């Protein structure tokens, strides 16, 4: 029934089901995200997109199924180990430390690869100091690349929501991911900010050789950015194809807008 994982896939989701109590949130979802591509995950509200993200990032444990990240089975891997496997993600609502500067927020992204335990850091060993300097330089570079250089030392609570999203993206990128999950990156952004976001995601995908999976409602962003989309509805995969195919697919239109009156024929 479910196909074996594609050999060139950075992410292979196979037969993933998720239940909360008696409610089936995800039902036997399978898809692949090809290496180096940008995959869109779309569907109406409550379709299970973010739940699927949470399964991939390890925040939720699916009841059944298999998730391979770069060939490694990760369903039983705790979420905090996923960063070391090359997975980074952003959240629908950027959760930053508002009392810390942009740079401090971004630096958290270096946690998974910065070496040294509490003793080394408490003693500020020369190697530890050097690693911290490198991480800071890298963080500043990312912040400047995404047009936030001027705000590097500004407290996060002095910045707008749109800028918070940029900071969160930098934080995820500093983790040096192979696979980047973006959860509604365009939500709450202005038109100009969405345009810039598209440019930024394209550029970093190229530069860091990333595979990107993006959950989004903004169809403009999905069309501009993604190679393929997977459409979810009621926790199940509805279809898979290009953004244009998805937008013209009657099943997708129905899922978003409801059934046309009089055209009642079951899908």
């Amino acid at each position, binding site marked *: 029934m479910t196909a074996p994982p594609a050999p060139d896939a950075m992410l292979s989701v196979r037969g993933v089901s998720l239940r909360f109590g008696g409610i089936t949130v995800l039902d036997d979802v399978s898809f692949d995200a090809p290496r180096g591509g940008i995959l869109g995950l779309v569907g109406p509200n409550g379709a299970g997109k*973010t739940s699927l993200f*949470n399964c991939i*990032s*390890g*925040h*939720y*444990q699916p009841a059944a199924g298999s998730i391979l990240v770069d060939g490694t089975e990760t369903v039983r891997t*705790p*979420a*905090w*180990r*996923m*960063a070391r496997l090359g997975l*980074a*993600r952003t*959240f629908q*609502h*950027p*959760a*930053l*430390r*508002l009392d810390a*500067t942009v*740079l401090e927020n971004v*630096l*958290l*992204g*270096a*946690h*998974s690869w*910065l070496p040294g*335990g*509490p003793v080394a*850091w*408490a*003693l500020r060993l020369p190697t*530890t100091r050097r690693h*911290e*300097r490198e991480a800071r*330089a890298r963080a500043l570079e990312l912040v400047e690349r*995404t*047009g*936030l250089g*001027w705000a*590097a*030392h500004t407290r996060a*609570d002095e*910045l*707008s*929501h*749109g*800028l*918070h*999203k*940029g900071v969160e993206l930098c*934080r995820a990128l500093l*983790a040096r991911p192979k696979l980047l999950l973006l959860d509604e990156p365009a939500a*709450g952004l202005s038109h100009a*900010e969405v345009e810039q976001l598209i440019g*930024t995601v394209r550029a970093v995908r190229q530069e860091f050789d990333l595979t990107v999976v993006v959950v989004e409602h903004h169809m403009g962003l999905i069309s501009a950015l993604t190679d393929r989309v997977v459409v979810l509805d009621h926790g199940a995969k509805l279809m898979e194809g290009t953004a244009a195919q998805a937008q013209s697919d009657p099943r997708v239109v129905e899922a978003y807008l409801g059934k046309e009156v009089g055209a009642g024929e079951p899908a």
Partner: protein
Amino acid sequence: MATATRPAPAATTTPPRSVVTRAAAAVAGLAVAVVLVVAPLVSSPYINFQLASIMVFAVALLGLNVIMGYTGQVSLGQSAFLGLGAYITAYGVLNDWPIALSLLLSAVVPAAVGMLVALAAARLRGLALAMITLALPIIGVPLARRFDGFTGGSQGQVVSWLRAPESLGLANDQWRYYVVAVIALVAFLLVRNLVRGRIGRSFAIVKENEAVALSMGVSPYRTKVLAFTIASALGGLSGFMYLAVVQYTSPETLVFATSINLVAAMVIGGSASIVGTALGALYYVLVPVLAGQVNSSRTALISGAVLLAVLFVLPAGLVSLPRRLARRRSARRGTRTAPHDTADDAATPTSTDGSAPAVPAPAATTTDQHP
């Protein structure tokens, strides 16, 4: 994301603070250092005892701040570790251990106990950790009474140790002050380093949002265990210092009220702040003394009134006073010259984007998976 129209600052490794602020901080730090070195030479034994007590409770508070201020986990059991450290040290003195061994074990044994407690308790969410830490002093006091072979029972242990070496020409109170001051200095330096780098950032994100912590490679569980272990070690260390200064310990040392007063002092000084920790210790030791001088039968009442007053005026603690004053000054200047700009007012979290939430909603509930 705005386009980079503003000039990007040169790549610096430290956040640029104004030269004036830095100079002021350096001068203040130097002045404090000089006072701390010279004061015991010119003060009475009573004053030196108070100064040394400040050092003792500064280290206990430092530990509390690691778990509570920096990592955001409520701990109501710090006094138990202080007491444990004091009893271990007393046992060492009475059994002629080398002082270095007492010092080591006064930190290591409480750290091990704290770690065991946290390994079990940090799996629980919310106030469960607080409830378990609450039990520590409550169980600790009767235990200390009961095991009188080790603790001296209700009478406690009186010791006489850490006398000033003759060659130095110092009085005992001066010598003991310097010993605890050096220990406090080392502890503060280590914790300051710790909270600034990788580990400090993991503490901060566990406090802020565990879902984000998980996604960035931080295990909230391990981080809490680590923070609690460090807090317990520092609590035990402050017990060593306590015995050095007071030369006596009893079940009273670890009563629950001490834990609560430490929590209050941490908040008064400023949580998640090294300077705030020191200010909290000043408050902890000096306010009851001063209140006692005002009216010796109303000490608790006056202390409580001071606590409330500080919290009303400075909810972020004494450490926020300079920032608060600067903000007020700039706000006043702002109203005179230009339309009021609230961008630097922490009381109103700004959101320049009207539609966006000013405070990020917590992410979806997470399954905190344990290793």
